Each structure stands twice: as structure tokens, then as C-alpha cells.
């Protein structure tokens, strides 16, 4: 749609609107209204850059990202087990450049919030009126004796997609039948909450298709519950012989909760053995996912919480109406680095602070931030946001499940909307089993979703 059409359309929409007292204020058309700098070109950063430009092309937008090609973490588990080529989850930045975003491939070394500037390794300095911080996550590598960044090639995390994904793929492929694939899950919060369990499902699926049916996946989980647990357990029982929680069962997948020994505290790299207070497991392939924190530059910019629980310390708190940082109104933090909202996470009241860290919600947050920034630079109040999330997981052939979340802002706080949220049905309303077509549809929707989120963010 041309800009002219768009304006006409909105005028027409305002005139025709059946909702009373809706107002679409006319906007001043000054030249060069301001400068927006975006740090980090993942789903959140790319979306923020694109949508600022779409809403107001008089705003200058610079996106700073070290990599020339983005590799999506969502769906990288499918790459790991050979269901899709890594090229299907890659995207470049040419689309954003076409939309007038100034894309700079460089590494941000410092944010000066007092002077409102960003400095790069390449020696460039960028001034901003509004700064979007979308640095994603970093790992702490803490909590497991004998484990450090130095051994991530030996024990890949594959929780930042790219070489790590392909490394774990290679190890999986080289594993003999009867081997044990161990996934060590850190304490929440971590990105893609269903990720480790989707991974376990797809690895078991891989065993079935590649003559490795005597092999096992063991999940040692620092947490006592997890995303879509009922649905995963149901799928595992149907597809992979899942019996119950704990070690020593007959199924291909075993899950040990934190309270019963899942909280790994020790690694013996020589024997590929991980242990906790209660259990010791020797692995053939060892996938250790380290604990997470906000991306490095968020710490340098002093945007992260320095006290409180897991969901406060090491993450960036934001204002619900705009995604602006709680400590600086000129800085907007979107994506995995932020903590946003109330979310009764797996029945753990201590964890009731987070929107899930997903690409989908990251893009929603970025669109909210983009609208708030454009409003501010035009001297308007921010529009009222609604936050929507969807996470699909493919757990077997033609078998997909999902969770959806909806949040509104009520009295200045994030409010989880249960009516617009929830997981795929466990049973039909009359308690009969869910017909296979539902699971098939969600497996198909997963592929449609990845194509669309990548295009919506980067094209």
C-alpha cells in the first residue's frame, strides 16, 4: 500500500468506525523528526526498526548488528535433527535496508545514556533520541562445577542458533544405538521455555527414524515443572513410550525434576558425567544449556536489575505501556533481555514476573515499542498495547502443540488475560481424545509461522 493510500485508508477508517469516540489525531509533518538507534538485529530489533519506519518514514533508524545473517533460534531444533536445512531459518538485512533502515554491521561496545550515544567497536558513534535495546541473552555458565565457556564445543548448548546447532547435530548423528542423549536445563527464566522438551521429542523422533531405538533422552531439569508439560507428557506417551517422571523408566524420554535430582551441580568432562545431589548420569551426547542473563550490552548500559529473584536480577524491567526501560524513558528494551508482566509460571509463585521469552512475544513487544517511539517523537501519547504470544512445538511426525498468551495493560501493570491464553486441548470438551487432525494442523502451522515471523521481521 502506498503511503498516500495508507493515510486515506486510516482517515476513512476513522470516519467509518463504529466504535464511539475513537480518535485518529492528525500528525504534524515536520522534516527529520528524530533518530532511533536499535542495538541488536534479532526478531525484536529487526521488527522494531522496520515498524518505526513503517509508521513514520521521517524518523531516521539505524540498526547495529554484528552478524550479516541472522539464524533463527525457533525451529533450530528441527535443523538439529535434520528435518529442515539451516538455510530455511536464515535471513539477511537487505529487506530492512530497502525500507530505509541504516543497517550497520558492527559491535556495540558502549551506551552512554547521559549523552544519548552508542559507540561501536569500529569506532563509530551514533546519537539517539530513542534507543531500542534488543541484545538478546548471554549465558552465565555458572552453577555447574567443572563447566565453563571453555567446554561449549565439547558440550554444545545449541541455544544460540548457528554453529552450535550444527555441532550438536553432528554429535547426535555420531551417537551409537543405545546411547544416552542428556539435556541439562537451567533454572528459569530461559528463552523458548518449551525448547528443551521440544528438543527431547525431536531427538527421540530421530532415534526412531535412524535405527537408534535403544537410545534414550534424559532431561535433567533444574525446575520442578515446565512449559506445556501435560501436552508433552501426553505426546511422549503416545509416541515414545513415556511412562512417568524419574530415571529408569522404559520410555525413550526420561525427565528428572529439580527437587528429585534434576538440578545439575557437577560435570566430569572426562567421563561426560553430570551429577546432582541425588543422581549421576553418564552421557554419550551432553547438551548443557547454561543459565541465562540479559545480553552483555544491557549490563554495560546499566539497564539490568541488580537485586531480587531470578526474574529480576540480570534482566531489564520495562514499563507496560511502552516497553520503555524502568530506569530510562529514552531507552526501550524488547525481546529476551526484558522482564515484562505477571505470568504464573508453572505454578511457581516466585517466578511470577515474566512474559515468556519467545520470538513471537519479542516481535509484539517491538511493535509496541515502535508505536510508542513514533508517538513520542510526534508529541502524542502512546497507544494502548495488547500483547499476544504464540509458541508452537513440533513433537513428532505430523504432531504439533502450542501455547498462546494474551496480556493487556491495566492500571499501568501487565495483566495476563486467561480468556485469550492457554495450551492446545488435552482432550475434547466431552473428555474424548483429541482427533489427530488437531495435532497435524499445529505441526503444519509451525512451518507457516516461521516463514511469516521471519518475513514480518526482516523482509
Amino acid at each position: 500500500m502506498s503511503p498516500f493510500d495508507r493515510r486515506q485508508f486510516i482517515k476513512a477508517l476513522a470516519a467509518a468506525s463504529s466504535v464511539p469516540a475513537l480518535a485518529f489525531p492528525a500528525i504534524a509533518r515536520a522534516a527529520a523528526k528524530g533518530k532511533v538507534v536499535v542495538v541488536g538485529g534479532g526478531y525484536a530489533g529487526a521488527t522494531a526498526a522496520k515498524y518505526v519506519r513503517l509508521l513514520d518514514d521521517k524518523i531516521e533508524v539505524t540498526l547495529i548488528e554484528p552478524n550479516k545473517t541472522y539464524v533463527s533460534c525457533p525451529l533450530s531444533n528441527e535443523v538439529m535433527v535434520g528435518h529442515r536445512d539451516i538455510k530455511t531459518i536464515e535471513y539477511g538485512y537487505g529487506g530492512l535496508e530497502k525500507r530505509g533502515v541504516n543497517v550497520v554491521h558492527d559491535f556495540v561496545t558502549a551506551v552512554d545514556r547521559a549523552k544519548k550515544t552508542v559507540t561501536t567497536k569500529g569506532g563509530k558513534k551514533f546519537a539517539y533520541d530513542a534507543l531500542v535495546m534488543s541484545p538478546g541473552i548471554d549465558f552465565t555458565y555458572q552453577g555447574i562445577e567443572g563447566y565453563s565457556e571453555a567446554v561449549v564445543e565439547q558440550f554444545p548448548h545449541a541455544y544460540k542458533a548457528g554453529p552450535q546447532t550444527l555441532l550438536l547435530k553432528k554429535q547426535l548423528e555420531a551417537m551409537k544405538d543405545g546411547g544416552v542423549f542428556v539435556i541439562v536445563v537451567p533454572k528459569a527464566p530461559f528463552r523458548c521455555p518449551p525448547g528443551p522438551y521440544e528438543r527431547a521429542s525431536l531427538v527421540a523422533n530421530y532415534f526412531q527414524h535412524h535405527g537408534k531405538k535403544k537410545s534414550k533422552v534424559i532431561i535433567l531439569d533444574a525446575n520442578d515443572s515446565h512449559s506445556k508439560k501435560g501436552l508433552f507428557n501426553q505426546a511422549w506417551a503416545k509416541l515414545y513410550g513415556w511412562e512417568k517422571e524419574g530415571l529408569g523408566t522404559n520410555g525413550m524420554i526420561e525427565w528428572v525434576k529439580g527437587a528429585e535430582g534434576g538440578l545439575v551441580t557437577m560435570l566430569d568432562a572426562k567421563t561426560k558425567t553430570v551429577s546432582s545431589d541425588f543422581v549421576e548420569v553418564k552421557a554419550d551426547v551432553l547438551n548443557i544449556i547454561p543459565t541465562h542473563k540479559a545480553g552483555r550490552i544491557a549490563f554495560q548500559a546499566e539497564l539490568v536489575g541488580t537485586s531480587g529473584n531470578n526474574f529480576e536480577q540480570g534482566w531489564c524491567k520495562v514499563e507496560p505501556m511502552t516497553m520503555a526501560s524502568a530506569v530510562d524513558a529514552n531507552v526501550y528494551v524488547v525481546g529476551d533481555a526484558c522482564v515484562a508482566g505477571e505470568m504464573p509460571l508453572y505454578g511457581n509463585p516466585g517466578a511470577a514476573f515474566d512474559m515468556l521469552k519467545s520470538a513471537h512475544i519479542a516481535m509484539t513487544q517491538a511493535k509496541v515499542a515502535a508505536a510508542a517511539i513514533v508517538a513520542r517523537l510526534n508529541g502524542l501519547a502512546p497507544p494502548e498495547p495488547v500483547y499476544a504470544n504464540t509458541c508452537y512445538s513440533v513433537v513428532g511426525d505430523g504432531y504439533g502443540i502450542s501455547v498462546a498468551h494474551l496480556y493487556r495493560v491495566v492500571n499501568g501493570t501487565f495483566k495476563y488475560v486467561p480468556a485469550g491464553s492457554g495450551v492446545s486441548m488435552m482432550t475434547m470438551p466431552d473428555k474424548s481424545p483429541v482427533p489427530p487432525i488437531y495435532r497435524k494442523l499445529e505441526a503444519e502451522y509451525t512451518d507457516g509461522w516461521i516463514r511469516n515471523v521471519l518475513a514480518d521481521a526482516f523482509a
Partner: protein
Amino acid sequence: MHRGVTFALAAASFMVAGIGVAAGNIEGIAHTCNNCHGYNGVSAGGSMPSIAGLPEAYLKNIMTEWKTGKRASANMTRLISGYTDEEIAGLAEYFSKLPWTPVAQKLDPKLIERGKQASQGCAGCHGPTGKATMAGTPNLNGQMAKYIELELLKYKDESFAMPSAMMRMVVKPLKDEDIPAIAAYYASQQ
């Protein structure tokens, strides 16, 4: 050229699941729909439908049926239930006013040919080339092939609650091989 910048300012208040929420910002909500349905409602992912330019009454009806439980969906019944009736009406209006944009797709020519023959029962409402001839009927020309195929499977599968008796009647006699063929045929039309 200047790009208009617009924001709906909340005025009226509605209730969702006991939470008082302000109405407005349809465009903001619509942008979140783009995540799955493509930028401006034009899909780039086979299993997800383009929604830009579909008839307003059709869009409103479908969303309302999900919300009220009359129509099954593997996923949309959940998210849509969190939106107010006013928001649903606003979204239907918003997307209906965007242009219908057929998407070029890689499709098997043999399948397209078979689909042309097999789709004659569809033409009465959806048109021989997918340009709907009946008010309130969605266009199918250049709609995503995988999506059309999955919709037909939903109508064919009696365990899936789809409310259109007409669609059920037309889809029931179709052979399994005709379903991806019809989808490919309509998807190929521009």
C-alpha cells in the same frame, strides 16, 4: 510523500474476562496478527492464510464463531477469546480494507491441472479462478496452497467442527488426491 501516523486513543471501556480494558488501537492489535498472517495480512508461510482483503462480514463471522465455540480451530479459538467484540469488529474492518493480494507460489503444474478439473463444484461461490462471485465469500486466487488444503481437510474430517453445511456437502465427495490439487489450482491463480 508523507506517511500518515495514526493512533487510536482509548476512550470507551469494555470488559474482558472480568478485566476492564480500554478499546481502541485496532491498528496496534492488527500488527500483532501480522506475526502469523504476514506483513499487512499477506502471508509468506504456506499453512497460514492471507487475511488482507477478505470480506469484512466473513472475517467478523469467523472470529465470532471461534470466540463463541461454534467453529473449531486448533489455535485461534484461544487467542480470539481474549479480544472484545468491538476489537473483533475493528480487526475485520481493518483487514477487509487492505487490498486482496494473490501470492505467487511454487506449485506442481500437474497438480494445478488436476485441480482445475476437480474444483468445478467450488466455482459457484468462489469463482472459476478463485475470485469470489458471491458476497461474503472469500477469494481463493493466490491464497496459500497449504492453507486451502488444510481447510478442505477440516471440512472432510467429521471430527472437526466446521459450521458451513454447504462446504461440508461440496467437500465430502472429493477424493483425497483432489484436495491438494484444488488447493494448488486456486493458489496458482493470480
